[in-house]
């Protein structure tokens, strides 16, 4: 009986799986393919043919720059900050007489921090509006698909904030000719952190704590270790943990034992809160140091007191260019600019400066000018390496008496 029953149930399950798997296919397949087939010509060919003359006409009087930012979706505040920063840059250029004598016009599109809307927005601005330069997107997962289009259609793209290495790299490891970014990539912070620890804190012995399962954290830790040992320092211990750990007592006992001058912990604020709180109990007095993962309103400033972290920018930076930027942004929008607004501003400035330097409104020339540029931005003096990643300074911030204070700016 039971065998028969089992057989029948198995058959029913198998049948339902097969049917279930088959049934949606005929309906789904056209749903995804049909629009691609019908829309592709509409998007790429038809408007290009009609709008192309308009685009060339436009070059006489105005220069169009597209800003792709997530104004809705999961991270709208990122998008709004980035857009505001970029628009302020454009306003300032226009006030100075524009670029190559042309007034700059912004075409703002909501790309939602998602691949599909970002691709649609990129196609729209290129094909319909005749834009040849794109500032955006904010999120790597949206910027990367846009970069494929930019590369294909020979449009210069600069992403203000996308840190994924794949943004500027082809799958074969070569650099995408038309794609740049204005922010440093993650491991760079480890290098700057190590330099600061060696030169400013005079640290000789470092202990590294990192989450092996997190690419961001591991990238920073590896870069720190390399730079610290290359600079003559000694890594006296390295311990890993998982993101689910809450009890760090065993690791911290080892840290206390090793008596390092600095403990490098490049994780997000939630782990930093737990580790630093427990470290205080274990009598660890060496300062902790991390990356921009610490940058959160939820950082436990009491536990992390005395700790340092690297970041893109600080409004307390004393350089005049930073102070001017903070003043102008506050005048325009009524708030202190965050890192996203700053990078949006820098990215737009870099692009416009490259167009000015190229002397012609031609993406072919502009991409070469951008690759060779040296520009004083708010987030540091920026040049590009061979992979189109910026080489620029980072700021060091310290958690002190419940506040985040600016310490210094470190050039790589």
């Amino acid at each position, binding site marked *: 009986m039971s065998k028969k029953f089992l057989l029948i149930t198995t058959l029913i399950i198998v049948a339902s799986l097969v049917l279930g798997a088959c049934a949606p296919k005929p309906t789904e397949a056209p749903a995804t393919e049909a629009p691609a087939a019908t829309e592709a010509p509409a998007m790429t060919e038809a408007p290009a043919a009609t709008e192309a003359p308009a685009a060339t006409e436009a070059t006489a009087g105005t220069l169009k720059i597209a800003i792709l930012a997530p104004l809705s979706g999961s991270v709208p505040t990122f998008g709004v900050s980035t857009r505001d920063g970029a628009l302020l840059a454009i306003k300032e250029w226009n006030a100075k007489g524009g670029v190559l004598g042309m007034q700059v016009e912004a075409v703002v599109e909501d790309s939602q921090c998602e691949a599909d809307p970002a691709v649609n927005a990129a196609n729209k601005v290129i094909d319909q509006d005749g834009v040849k330069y794109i500032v955006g997107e904010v999120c790597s997962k949206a910027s990367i698909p846009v970069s494929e289009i930019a590369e294909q259609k020979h449009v210069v793209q600069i992403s203000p904030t996308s840190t994924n290495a794949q943004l500027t790299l082809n799958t074969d490891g070569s650099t995408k000719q038309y794609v740049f970014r204005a922010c440093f990539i993650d491991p760079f912070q480890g290098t700057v952190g190590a330099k600061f620890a060696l030169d400013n804190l005079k640290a000789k012995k470092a202990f590294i704590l990192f989450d092996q399962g997190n690419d961001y954290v591991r990238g920073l830790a590896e870069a720190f270790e390399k730079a610290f040992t290359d600079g003559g320092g000694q890594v006296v211990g390295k311990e890993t*943990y998982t993101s689910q750990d809450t009890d760090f*007592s065993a690791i911290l006992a080892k840290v206390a*034992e090793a008596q390092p001058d600095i403990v490098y912990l490049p994780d997000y604020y939630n782990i930093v809160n737990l580790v630093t709180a427990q470290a*205080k109990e274990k009598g660890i007095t060496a300062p902790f140091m991390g990356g921009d993962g610490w940058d959160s309103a*939820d950082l436990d400033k009491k536990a992390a007191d005395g700790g340092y972290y690297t970041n893109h920018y600080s409004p307390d930076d004393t350089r005049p260019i930073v102070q001017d930027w903070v003043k102008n942004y506050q005048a325009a929008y009524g708030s202190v600019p965050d890192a996203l607004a700053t990078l949006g501003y820098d990215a737009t400035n870099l692009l416009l400066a490259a167009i000015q330097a190229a002397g012609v409104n031609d993406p072919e020339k502009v991409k070469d000018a951008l690759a060779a540029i040296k520009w004083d931005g708010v987030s540091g003096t920026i040049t590009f390496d061979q992979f189109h990643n910026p080489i620029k300074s980072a700021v060091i911030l310290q958690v002190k008496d419940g506040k985040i204070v600016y310490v210094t700016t470190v050039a790589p």
Partner: protein
Amino acid sequence: MENERLTFTDRMIKGKWIGKLLLIAIALLAIWGIGNKAVHNPQLFIQQIINGLQLGFVYALIALGYTMVYGIVRLINFAHGDVFMVGAMVSYFAVGSFHLHQWPAAVFPGLPMFVSLLIGTLSVILLSMATCALLAVTIERIAYKPLRNAPRISALITAIGVSFFLEYFGALPFVFTPNFITYKRPYDIITWYLKDGFHRLEAGKAPPQGSILISNNLLIIILVTVILLLSLTYIVQKTKVGKAMRASAYDKPTSRLMGINVDGIISITFAIGAALAGAAGVLYATAYPQVFFWMGIIPGLKAFIAAVLGGIGSIPGAFVGALIMGQAEVLAAGYISTPMRDAIAFSILILVLLIRPTGIFGEPEREKA
């Protein structure tokens, strides 16, 4: 049929001996490895044992709830870890928003700081315990009682459902929010170091090399756990309710015939277990100061393993199992490999269960007539 089964068990027993020898060899190797390093630096080893004690005592409080509930209704209450989370959250709001820990200072200003803080902290713990007890009784009445006579798997699935409900209800923005919340302790941490006597460690200073650190947190955890454990033993062994519990665990229908209100006893068991989890939640949060809506999953799972390790259904077993879990985790992290700590802790479970399938203190299941 009978013959076939006998030879099969025979073969199992024979095969098991080889496995057991192998496992004992591995265990000895690990102990030898740790011991070797420990001899070189005995101070660090003692420090790690203390760290393990702190973790083990908290696990013990959670494990007791699992073991008591299993003992009486044969249900693995997977929502137990989330009751623990609720206990931690309640204390967070009691301390952070309502300053409950400061009431003795406000009502009796003459009390010394130490006494008033101790009473304040204990009242925070009591509030968490009461809330958790109430919550557990409600859960039992709504979700488990209607399934008392259903197949055991249905009750298990329901327990998992309740667990998810508590987690994601807690994650709602107007309940506990889905954020990582920095826990505010009712008292400040004081650390003492043991080297040529007992000294207080001043804030921001490093202790001298080779000293052993003990914090007031650890003392509070041990104190509270021991008090609760002794009261629990008293309740179970010496009171009428405890007698009724043991009777119901042994044989429910006969207990009913003897005039015991079995449903009431089951509710009381859930309440006591949850109250212990609530206390554990507060202690865990003071030791590892961060609370969030799924903080109960991992400690709950580990405490469950501790309960199985000690022999599920056995109260001393849960305590011993939890202490072993705490030590295993910390020593594995301290001497073998940090990312492997859970793997090692779980391997210990397998090892013990292979040698004693019913756990350390567990008795072989008796067939009931």
